[in-house]
């Protein structure tokens, strides 16, 4: 590892001045001559077929320029399109109108008559699984299990298929008779390892509990507004996306053009949290309307529209039977999940939920079963910690209950089950082996947290009551996949002596878009002032880049840029050796020069080396690039040829294991037993997230991610009326995102800063693991305060708490979703 001067230190991101002055331009901040505005006609029904659209009245209105319907969009092989002729949820866009202003577009929408034939619909997944229950789609009610590709199969995998599954009355007949346990009928997906029955036999305590993890809207502050125009046959799209380089392919597919004809501009993204992973399918609307109207088109998405098309967390109802030894070790885990994929998908949260449960609790034996149900509710997408966060929700109340029954400390029971080192998780792969992680230091994180949080002192007052306020403490481990491999980097050292790093990462506030240049600069001993990061516009020639989702970016792109910088370094050394004699290995880097070891005077400045690279051409200035880089990278490199010395490489560093990060959350709450109100008093997160690249941003990720989990424990929700299939919680005061006054005014966060051994920079991702930690820790703290059986759903709002305390048992509807 090179001297890490920049990695591990704070810095001012180069975009920050633009942000604090309001000059940062997000998608809706762009204007173009003759720009039209579009408004959407949304489905009023949860499931219907468009029979006829009368556009005459709308077209006759002044200022109306074009109307776009689903018929104008390319077929996506059954996948979600930006507009539909068969709306599958209330709020799904049916058509869009472009007009000279929003008032005209809105009036034109009102002048449209759509004849809809209603179709059966369902809001709650269990209702769809009941005998005779409605199906969300005409083709079925569940997603079939994905099929492994046939041996020797070529081309893309087949599109996901729906299936029809109904459970029996017997499946719904609750063995306990109180309707509080999730029925477990036929599951379409299943895996297991170990001897489950032996595990339960060996257990001293077996618990069987159900938990309902709610859905919530992602609701980034910036909605998915977009503006589009065409120039010389190319689409210029100002969109809001988490990823930049990796968004182009999707846009091209949605619009029906080749990726080479897409220029995506997104220098600033107002948040995504998984809802804008590879952009938004709705961006096809301004793109195609612009083509049709032959004018730029702005699509301003309202907050209510964002409630419909803006994506939501995959809600999950889980039932777990868990066996514990006397000392708390989990011997067996039988996990059953009913996942609600909404109207589209299929979502895979259920799989990552199962993997996460197997990872953080390290059961001796485990079975995972799941069914992935379609409902006529707004589309889901991965939301910050998709799956692992649900695992925390489903599992943590059980582990806490076991700790209470076994007389164990909450930390102790997590510690005895915690993953360690190259911990194994999940089911066996095709090679018969169960996968393992690159590294895990969860026990160290638990120990650190006990010390920093003052766990023992807080434990002494937990359960104590002062007036109507009772205290409780909780801890939980949030895991998440935290890094991918195999992406590319391009950087150039130019005759001005500066290092230009092409960054294809989205700028959604994590700063990974700039962080990735720091290890590159370290390798090249380049001062940060001489580093220019080029980002936010695919017209600026970006390398093949991972999606900025799944906490993978920091890991993936520090590796790729480490590789690219090593390539640039080697070229500097080779040029020096060519010009000044000796072998490349005789040269080292420093003071913006490449020089003979021990003789700093004998060398070239980076500026000189850049000029020489251009003169030499070939691989030195990008005329030829390594064979193994992606075609996207080759195309971009070709456009940067001759600008300077080019470092271009694919990340081929070995990696033993899959990269995961872990965050441990510690929470203390105060519950008012007279009002049911829960107040979070204190919170600490401890990150086992590898080498720290950007300390200040890392702490912000830990705190921000924790807050999302805290919000899910305390207040955030969404609500759909089951009778009409209509989203009721369309407004913030209905769906209740966390405010600044819902958390203590200081959050604590710390990181172990232990490098991951399987990546050259040592860094792992951090965005997601805090979410499950926050969710689980707060749920556990509430349970600690008022009893481990007080609730089995989230958010744990005043009504749930108060009714439980009032009646001495849970009173909330046990199995219903979307409340």
């Amino acid at each position: 590892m090179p001297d890490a001067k920049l990695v591990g230190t704070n810095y001012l991101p180069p975009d920050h001045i633009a942000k604090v002055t309001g000059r940062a331009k997000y998608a809706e901040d762009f204007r173009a001559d003759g720009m039209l505005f579009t408004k959407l006609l949304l489905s009023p029904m949860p499931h219907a077929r468009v029979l006829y659209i009368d556009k005459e009245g709308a077209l006759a209105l002044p200022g109306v320029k074009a109307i776009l319907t689903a018929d104008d969009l390319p077929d996506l092989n059954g996948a979600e399109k930006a507009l539909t002729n068969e709306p599958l949820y209330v709020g799904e866009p049916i058509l869009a109108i472009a007009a000279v202003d929003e008032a005209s577009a809105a009036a034109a929408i009102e002048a449209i008559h759509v004849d809809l034939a209603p179709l059966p619909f369902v809001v709650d997944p269990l209702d769809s699984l009941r005998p005779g229950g409605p199906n969300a789609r005409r083709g079925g009610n569940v997603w079939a299990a994905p099929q492994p590709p046939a041996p020797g199969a070529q081309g893309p995998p087949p599109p996901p298929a729906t299936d029809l599954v109904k459970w029996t009355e017997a499946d719904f007949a609750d063995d306990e008779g109180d309707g509080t346990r999730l029925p477990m009928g036929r599951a379409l997906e299943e895996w297991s390892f170990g001897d489950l029955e032996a595990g339960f036999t060996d257990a001293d305590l077996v618990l069987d509990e159900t938990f309902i993890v709610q859905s919530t809207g992602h609701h980034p502050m910036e909605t998915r507004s977009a503006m589009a125009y065409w120039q010389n046959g190319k689409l210029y799209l100002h969109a809001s996306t988490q990823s930049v380089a990796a968004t182009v392919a999707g846009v091209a597919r949605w619009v029906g053009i080749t990726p080479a004809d897409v220029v995506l501009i997104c220098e600033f993204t107002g948040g995504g949290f998984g809802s804008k992973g590879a952009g938004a399918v709705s961006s096809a609307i301004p793109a195609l309307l612009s083509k049709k109207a032959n004018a730029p088109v702005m699509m301003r998405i309202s907050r209510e529209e964002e409630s419909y098309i803006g994506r939501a967390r995959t809600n999950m109802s889980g039932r777990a039977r868990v066996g514990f030894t006397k000392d708390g070790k989990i011997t067996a885990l039988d996990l059953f999940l009913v996942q609600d994929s909404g109207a589209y998908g299929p979502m895979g949260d259920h799989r990552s939920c199962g993997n996460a449960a197997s990872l953080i609790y390290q059961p001796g034996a485990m079975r995972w079963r799941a069914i992935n149900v379609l409902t006529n509710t707004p589309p889901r997408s991965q939301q910050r910690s998709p799956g692992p966060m649900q695992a925390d929700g489903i599992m943590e109340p059980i582990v806490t209950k076991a700790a209470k029954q076994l007389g164990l400390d909450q930390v102790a029971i997590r510690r005895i089950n915690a993953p360690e080192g190259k911990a194994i998780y999940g089911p066996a792969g095709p090679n018969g082996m169960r996968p393992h992680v690159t590294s895990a230091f969860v026990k160290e994180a638990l120990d650190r947290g006990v010390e920093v949080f003052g766990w023992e002192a807080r434990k002494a007052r937990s359960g104590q009551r002062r007036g109507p306020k009772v205290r409780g403490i909780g801890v939980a481990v949030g895991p998440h996949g935290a890094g991918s491999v195999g992406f590319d980097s391009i950087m150039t050292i130019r005759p001005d002596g500066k290092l230009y790093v092409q960054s294809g990462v989205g700028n959604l506030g994590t700063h990974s878009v700039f962080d990735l240049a720091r290890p590159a600069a370290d390798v090249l001993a380049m001062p940060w002032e001489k580093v220019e990061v080029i980002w936010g516009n695919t017209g600026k020639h970006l390398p093949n880049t991972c999606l900025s989702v799944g906490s993978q970016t920091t890991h993936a792109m520090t590796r790729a840029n480490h590789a690219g910088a090593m390539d640039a370094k080697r070229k500097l050394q080779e040029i020096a050796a060519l010009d000044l004699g000796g072998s490349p290995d005789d040269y080292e880097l420093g003071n913006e020069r490449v020089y003979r070891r021990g003789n700093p005077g004998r060398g070239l400045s980076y500026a000189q080396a850049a000029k020489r690279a251009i003169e030499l051409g070939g691989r030195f200035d990008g005329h030829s690039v390594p064979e193994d880089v992606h075609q996207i990278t080759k195309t971009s490199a070709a456009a940067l040829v001759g600008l300077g010395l080019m470092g271009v490489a694919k990340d081929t560093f070995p990696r033993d294991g899959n990269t995961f990060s872990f965050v441990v959350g510690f929470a203390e709450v105060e519950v008012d037993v007279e009002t049911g109100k829960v107040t979070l008093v204190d919170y600490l997160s401890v990150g086992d997230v590898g080498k720290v690249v950007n300390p200040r941003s890392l702490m912000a990720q830990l705190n921000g991610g924790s807050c999302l989990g805290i919000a899910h424990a305390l207040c955030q929700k969404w609500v759909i009326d089951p009778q009409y299939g209509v989203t009721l919680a369309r407004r913030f005061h209905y769906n209740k995102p966390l405010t600044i006054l819902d958390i203590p005014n200081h959050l604590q966060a710390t990181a172990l800063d232990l490098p991951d051994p399987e990546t050259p920079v040592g860094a792992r991702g951090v965005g997601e693991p805090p979410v499950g930690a926050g969710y689980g820790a707060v749920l556990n703290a509430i349970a600690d305060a008022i009893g481990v059986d007080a609730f089995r759903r989230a958010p744990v709002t005043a009504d749930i708490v108060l009714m439980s305390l009032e009646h001495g048992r849970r009173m909330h509807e046990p199995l219903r979703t979307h409340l």
Partner: protein
Amino acid sequence: MDPVTRRNFIKTVIAAGATASSVGYLFRGPGALLGQTPSAPGAVERLITLNVNGQMRRVDVMKQETLAMTLRYKLGLTGTKLGCDRAECGACTVLIDDVPHYSCSVLTHTVRSRAVVTIEGLESPTGELHPVQRGVLDEQGFQCAFCMPGFIMSAVGFLKVNPNPTRQELAHGISGNLCRCQDYDKILTALMKGVEYTRGASNA
């Protein structure tokens, strides 16, 4: 599976205790058409002068136009963000006569003869950042920063009333602003740094 007919759907709805108008509300009867009726006697005139960031700006404003839309679409001041357009998130916060308001929920016609300051108006004429902006810069407050202009304007407005707040008081002062990155902890740290700088600036 056969699609159910509209008639059946409506029947179901009626049987469930609703009426056909539950569908009808979504396809409501004709309403007022767009456009702008000519000003009636005693009504406001469209062409008005606004005082924005210390400049007098002449602008043609529809009667129903909100200040946020005027700023963003007529005056080119896109630093003021629309997060919800419903007075719930604070991204559009501007100062009107030094007081923070949700500009999405202010009719532009109501701010004639009042002083509007947006994020673009905080820098000094010589281009120096406002102390609160400097605090945010130095502490790297905010992540995606879409909410940042609104938060900064709320803080600047709050400091005019309470120039020396505690961290908790400041949290209350800016509590009308949402951050979905939920970077609240660092936002408070950054804005408290801005408080410190503001105090320093006013003492100087």
